[in-house]
């Protein structure tokens, strides 16, 4: 009924037209996905987190490379094996005038588990804290049950609200992990209508209207560097064609995720430009190597060939990553040799962990050695509307696998169906993506490769049944090492263990483009967020 492709080709018809509206103090952004609430703790998903960062700040924040820096904390350090000390900024005021201190942090952590109707609570990033200590209002000590090196980075995921502004005396709060007692919290509706939208961030919420967008205005009392724009409008333009058209029509100043097909058109227009940067999202193929047989595979010996490491290696080196990147991704992607791009914490430096070399002959030989000279048949599951050109990439992989003798058929579907079926272990092999929200190697390794285990909480997205004891031990060691240098080395080692066992097939890292007027500029972020406070007029 509704074909994005047609719209895109219609947009391609447009000749480039200069749109030089007068430079004003307003920035209008066309966003690709809409936040579901202005409540900073309603749901832990990208569009909501993106909005949150304008209004509510966190103790630690992450820069464009997802490296942590102090936001409401000036410094932090481990004080003992299971506690972290945060020194808080003293000159910070919430937008209602109340000053920020350690009790606001505790109040926030108290609110998070009880947010009503939340489909994705932020407890993922607060549950490590078992006890708080406040030696003085601007020092906060957080105790954890075991060594927890990721605490500062996890504390960058949620925004802090004011206890005083909500009529609570912070000192009186008795923190308890299972509930802080009968304290009044603002409701999600209070945030949506702006009443409770009281933060310390560079912008204030002027209005939040579902479907129509968000209006922000400058926070005059902001403690940090004042953003350039007096007001910001974030308009949800969820379909690709209309979003590009809005940029060409001059209705917005910048857009997220212009479709690859239109990048050349934007670049050809002298009044517009594209900026792009690598993201923390890897596109990978997971191999159902756990079960002894899998209904998505039919091999001559009725076993599961994916249990054999030689078969997994063959499937990985049978994929020509360079061809996928240049032909299907239009060059807007980077071939991957592990699960996090070089330069990020725990990834190998550039060139040390190269993508596996494409080698059809060797792949065939490995298959023969493993006892499958005539290959086998497998079904590759994939979403077709979740990642950039996901369906096409899966098609290409299927052809490449078929070329080495593994007859591959594609089962492509819309993402809502795909993820439900994937989580029921229905695919022998599937294509998906992983964005490392903590910006370090531990994130993909513990979610995708670690053995699924309720006690550790690891392996939540390991829907392959893969389990490797050596890997699990190595990962556990890394994730309990507080020293950054040491942990980074251990994470690299753990990544090598996973890649050496061909546990998962990394394909490429997505590159995120933004299209905008030539008169403004934005530094690409690996976490793919569009933060208006960081948009400046081009020099």
């Amino acid at each position, binding site marked *: *009924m*509704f*074909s994005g492709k*047609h*719209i895109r080709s*219609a*947009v391609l018809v*447009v000749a480039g*037209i200069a749109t030089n509206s007068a430079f004003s103090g307003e920035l209008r952004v066309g966003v690709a996905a*809409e936040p*579901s*609430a202005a409540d900073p703790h*309603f*749901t*832990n*998903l990208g569009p909501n987190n993106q909005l949150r960062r304008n209004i509510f700040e966190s103790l630690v924040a992450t820069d464009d490379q997802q490296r942590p820096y102090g936001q409401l904390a000036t410094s932090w350090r481990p004080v003992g094996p299971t506690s972290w000390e945060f020194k808080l900024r003293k000159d910070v005021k919430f937008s209602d005038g109340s000053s920020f201190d350690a009790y606001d942090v505790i109040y926030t952590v108290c609110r998070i588990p009880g947010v*009503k*109707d*939340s*489909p*994705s*609570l932020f407890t*993922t990033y607060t549950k490590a804290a078992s006890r708080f200590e406040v030696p003085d209002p601007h020092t906060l000590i957080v105790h954890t049950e075991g060594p927890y090196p990721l605490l500062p980075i996890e504390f960058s995921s949620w925004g802090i609200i004011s206890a005083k502004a909500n009529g609570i005396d912070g000192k009186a709060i008795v923190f308890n992990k299972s509930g802080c007692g009968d304290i009044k919290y603002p409701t*999600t*509706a209070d945030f949506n209508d702006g009443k409770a939208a009281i933060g310390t961030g560079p912008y204030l919420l002027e209005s939040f*209207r*579902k*479907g*129509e*967008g968000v209006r922000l205005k400058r926070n005059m009392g902001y403690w940090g560097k004042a953003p350039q724009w007096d007001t910001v409008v974030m*308009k949800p*333009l*969820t*379909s690709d*064609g*209309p979003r590009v*058209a*809005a940029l*060409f*029509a001059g*209705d917005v100043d910048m857009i997220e995720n212009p479709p690859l097909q239109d990048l050349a058109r934007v670049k050809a227009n002298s009044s517009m430009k594209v900026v792009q940067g690598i993201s923390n999202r890897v596109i990978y193929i997971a191999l159902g190597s756990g079960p002894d047989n899998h209904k998505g595979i039919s091999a001559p010996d009725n076993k599961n060939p994916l249990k054999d490491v030689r078969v997994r290696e063959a499937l990985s080196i049978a994929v020509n990553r360079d061809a996928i990147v240049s032909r299907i991704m239009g060059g807007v992607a980077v071939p991957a040799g592990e699960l996090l791009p070089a330069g990020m914490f725990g990834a190998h430096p550039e060139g040390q962990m190269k993508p596996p070399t494409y080698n059809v002959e060797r792949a065939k030989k490995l298959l023969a050695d493993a006892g499958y000279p005539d290959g086998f048949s497998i079904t590759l599951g994939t979403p077709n509307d979740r990642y950039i050109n996901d369906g096409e990439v899966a098609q290409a992989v299927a052809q490449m696998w078929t070329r080495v003798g593994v007859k591959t058929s594609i089962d492509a579907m*819309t*993402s*809502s169906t795909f*993820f*439900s*079926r*994937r*989580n029921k272990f229905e695919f022998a092999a599937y294509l998906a993506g992983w*964005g490392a*929200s*903590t910006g370090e190697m531990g*994130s993909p390794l513990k*979610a995708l490769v670690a053995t699924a*285990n*309720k006690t550790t*909480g690891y*392996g*939540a*997205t390991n829907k392959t049944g893969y389990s490797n004891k050596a890997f699990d031990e190595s990962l556990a060691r890394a994730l309990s090492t507080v020293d950054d240098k040491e942990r980074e080395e251990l994470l690299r080692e753990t990544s090598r263990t996973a890649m050496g066992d061909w546990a998962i097939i990394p394909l490429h890292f997505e590159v995120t483009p933004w299209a905008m007027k030539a008169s403004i500029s934005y530094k690409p972020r690996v976490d793919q967020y569009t933060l208006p406070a960081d948009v400046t007029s081009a020099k």
Partner: protein
Amino acid sequence: MLVYMLRRVVQSLFVIAAMVVIVFFGVYLIGNPIDILISPDATLDEIEATKARFGFDQPIHVQFFQFLLQASQGDLGRSFVHGESAIGLILHYMPATLELAFLGLVFSVLLGVPIGIYAGYRSQRWQGRAIMTGTVFGFSLPNFWVGMLLILIFSVHLQWLPSTGRADTITVWGLQLSIFAPGGLKYMVLPALTLALYKASLLARLARAGTQEALLQDYVKFARAKGVSETRILFVHVLKNILIPIVSVLGLELGSMIAFAVVTETVFAWPGMGKLLIESITKLDRPVIVAYLMLTVLMFVTINLVVDLLYTWLDPRVRITAEPT
């Protein structure tokens, strides 16, 4: 009359019940919303706890029973995505769709009816044929394509009208409307035109056929003999007589315009119910989908009823009786 109304109500209750069952179980079969809505970083425990909080750990018939229990108290549940009451959410998006559909309807009548009457009047000349050819395009061009084309011409090239979105609203009769707001119409012209094109073609064809027929009637000959001007004959006497089919089609089309403005709303990023529906479907937001469809059925039933009542007013020969038709 009363019996007739009662029968209508009972019929529509059956339709709603059948629809609810189909949608409820259909969405359940597609997948579990938490699989899409929860952050990928959540642990297995958290995923299970979240599913339990929403009651997804219960077997489907238990979930359905709970839904029925709540629905019988007038509560259609809360959106999984937004955490708000599903009905409240739909009502929030509804004024935008209503005003757009209304303007679309006005456009289609203003365009379609006069053109159709003229085409009927000149049916054997080139003007009439040209108009009929034009309506074929009106029928067959896909909505999204027309919408994009209008954006390209009027927003990107000429830069006369904004490409997407809705003006800031003002409160009129308790509704958030943009149609009366300053600059509000500017945002509505293109989407309303896109919506109107198909309906205008339909109305033009209806009006043409009616006019052709009416022109052969004795009262037209008589009026001509009396010296009444052609304009007056066409737009007073003929128009009155061809209105009945037009009104009945208009009623149905208004319903479909409100319920299925999905594509137009998506192309123009118009914050209406259609856009809400599409987004709810992609996220398996069952309460919103069910509530939306229930509302749609209700609306169609009501519109049909109103159209029936309008008949009697337009044509005194029509009588509503208890006999099934």
